[in-house]
């Protein structure tokens, strides 16, 4: 099938307006939240439903054309960048919440549903969807499934994987399959769990049955201000070690505070404060009160300079809006920022923050820290000017050093942003050749022609050298 034939077939399937070939428009699909790379797709196709999606994938499979699924394009690891001139399969037209099964506590959604929209649709009935990535105003459930996204409130309730009951998937050869069930139990071969976090490399999710939860009876948020970031991180470890698992436990350091206080959602932090901890507990009233007391005692013991509780729900919302817009607020400090994502054992937070400080000095860059402290998930924000090539080089190297540190501490190179295009080489640092080859085994079983999201996640292993050429990939980068 030549290029004209398969594009014509795509137009027949989805309609002419929904196949984009204009180079200017194509370039807008060339990147995502990972701004260090971009590539132009050969086309963009927008299916309206699972039948069209299945036909589109069947057509591309028959023609041997690579493709990449795209939600809102908020991936921070380059997951949606179309390498190999892949066709972008944009799922924005599949954005319906199809039904809510209140008895089984499951919402059946198309992949293009925006994360926040699901909770907004449920709140009047007293329910919500727990995973809340900071990009939840824009990111889609399909993208969340692909990346196994987390968020501030995943400490207690788990990440996306823990909230997906069943998936409908279009396999790379165009067939539609159902993975999992509405029952809360894993199948003997748990393809549902394998699909979550597979970064669009094993198939494209066309339907999601997401677990919904009742809003807690009570919710209590505490803010603690510290003069020393090390004291704040000790407090994090102490809270967890005391057996309290808050719903959220977030930390911002001085530079991050400077940024958010310049943003829209100003809290009014004292400018000389070194760190802010936001701690939220929820549940039945007596349990919430008991946990709040334990947390307050720990915060005092760990040297908190000030402990605040919100005077209204509006104030609580302001605190969270301030925290969740922290990444964007970095734009007020520098022309660009590079978000890193690594995980360390919680108990090593103080050492990790010291090391990041040393790395910032060594490379002569500013690094802000805004992160999910409760689960050891660091998000150093490396500020830079993209007009300064030398600075870009230093930022890349500093990011790499931070990931080395995470692994040296026994952690991981990514907690929630995924490997994507960004961390393929670093995956080698974390995994043995055998472990990577086992991952390739899964990839080959699901996607024999290796068309789904090519040249992502898995570095080329010893048995796969012939299959992927890095030079070819680099040539495709604009």
């Amino acid at each position, binding site marked *: 099938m030549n290029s004209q034939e398969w594009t014509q077939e795509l137009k027949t399937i989805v309609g002419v307006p929904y196949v984009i070939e204009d180079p200017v428009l194509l370039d807008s699909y060339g990147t995502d939240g990972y701004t260090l790379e971009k590539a132009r797709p050969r086309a963009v196709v927008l299916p309206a439903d699972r039948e069209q999606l299945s036909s589109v994938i069947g057509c591309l499979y028959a023609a041997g054309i690579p493709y990449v699924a795209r939600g809102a394009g908020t991936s921070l690891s380059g997951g949606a960048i179309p390498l190999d001139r892949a066709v972008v399969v944009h799922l924005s037209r599949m954005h319906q919440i199809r039904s809510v099964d209140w*008895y*089984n506590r499951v919402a059946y959604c198309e992949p293009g549903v925006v994360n926040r929209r699901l909770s907004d649709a449920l709140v009047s009935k007293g329910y919500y969807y727990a995973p809340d990535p900071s990009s939840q105003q824009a990111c889609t459930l399909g993208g969340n499934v692909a*990346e196994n996204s987390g968020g501030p409130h*995943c400490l207690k309730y*788990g*990440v996306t*994987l*823990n909230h997906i009951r069943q998936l409908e998937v279009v396999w790379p050869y165009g067939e539609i*399959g159902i993975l999992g*069930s509405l*029952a*809360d*139990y*894993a199948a*003997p*071969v*748990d*393809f549902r*769990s394998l699909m*979550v*976090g*597979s970064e669009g*490399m*094993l198939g494209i999710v066309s339907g999601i049955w997401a677990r919904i939860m*009742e*809003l*807690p009876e009570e919710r209590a948020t505490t803010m603690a201000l510290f003069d020393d970031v090390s004291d704040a991180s000790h407090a994090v470890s102490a809270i*967890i070690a005391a*057996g*309290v*698992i808050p719903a959220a436990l977030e930390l911002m350091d001085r530079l991050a505070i400077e940024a958010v206080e310049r943003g829209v959602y100003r809290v009014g932090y004292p400018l000389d404060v070194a760190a802010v901890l936001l701690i939220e507990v*929820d*549940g039945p009233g007596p*349990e919430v009160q*008991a946990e709040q007391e334990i947390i307050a005692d720990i915060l005092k013991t760990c040297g908190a300079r000030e402990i605040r509780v919100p005077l209204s729900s509006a104030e609580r919302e302001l605190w969270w809006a301030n925290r969740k817009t922290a990444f964007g607020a970095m734009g007020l400090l520098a022309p660009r920022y590079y978000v890193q994502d690594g*995980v360390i*054992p*919680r*108990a090593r937070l103080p050492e990790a923050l010291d090391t990041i400080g040393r790395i910032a000095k060594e490379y002569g860059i500013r690094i802000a820290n805004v992160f*999910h402290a409760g*689960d*050891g998930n660091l998000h150093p924000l490396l500020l830079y000017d993209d007009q300064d090539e030398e600075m870009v080089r230093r930022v890349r190297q500093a990011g790499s050093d931070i990931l080395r540190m995470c692994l040296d501490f*026994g*952690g*991981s190179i*990514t*907690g929630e942003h*995924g490997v994507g295009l960004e961390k393929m080489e670093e*995956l080698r640092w974390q*995994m*043995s050749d*055998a*472990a990577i080859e*086992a991952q390739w*085994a*899964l*990839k*080959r*079983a699901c996607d024999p022609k290796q068309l789904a999201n090519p040249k992502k*996640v898995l570095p080329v292993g010893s048995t796969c050298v012939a299959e992927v050429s890095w030079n070819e990939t680099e040539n495709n980068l604009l």
Partner: protein
Amino acid sequence: MTSTEALEDLAREASARRRPLLARGNQRRSASDLHDVIWRSIWEEPQVEPMAEDLLVTASAGVTITHLNAVLQPYGQWIPYQSPDGIDDTLGAVLGMGLDSIWRAGYGSLPDRVVALKVWTPALGTFDLGAKVVKNVAGFNLLRLFLGSRATFGIVLEATLKVSPIPRAQARWVWTQTLDQTPQTLERLLRPGKSWAYVLGQGTPENYAVWAEWHGYPAMVEQLAHSLGPMTTTDLTPNAVGPAITGAIPRSHLPQWAREAGTRMLLEWQTGWFWLPVDDGQEDAWIAKVRALGGIAVATHGDRMHMKGVDASTSALVSRLKAQLDPQGILGAWDE
């Protein structure tokens, strides 16, 4: 010689002779249990490495849950697993067979606790998956392939799991009522924002016992006692050891399933988790009934992975994976 080296020797021999290799646990779940080539090989003591500050523990597959919890107890931590038939399972058996326990509602599922595995496969030898931290999305979620698949693709040698703090207070209530009254009882018990540790039911439709246990803080237990009346100290009676199936049913089908499955079934009403003793050889028939209700079930004994009724596409995927990870087919068994 380490246990892993011993396993690799066994595997080489099995491969050369083209004979199956079975991983065995403590052999309490019939003659062909999983996963304790490691401990039973006696070259090593059972290994448990608590990471108390991080609420994690790493243990070798042959460690029993009782032993694991005894090591964790001084740290005020535990792995909430208790088999209804009273068998003290090895960690490898629980994970490899895809079992779960009565604590599922209050503490989440056992697979969700697993953050890292050391596995052995015939094609690739020994390797680590996941990371010993509470959050990690590096690469595919491949460790899930080895949970519940009964050593079909590889043998679990070691696992790192999230542990839970031992609750500061716990209390149990029991009521006897009719089966039809149970959904209303459940509605009365549920508290938004936190599940009960369990709400279990068992008995005849006319004489149906409901046990509810709360784990949390003393103030909450006091409040519950005020509204629910006196607590009980009666323990759950373990089911007899023998063939059974376990799994979960969607909540919407629970009353129907409770009637259909009969009086021996232990049913957790918040999650739909159940444990159902069945007659020997009847596992497949009961698993099919569960699937017909939209649920998932596995046998609690034996090393065979029950795949009957699975669609052709999934079955083909399993075969392709098996061909890559165990090309000579020396591990496990499943009905194609």
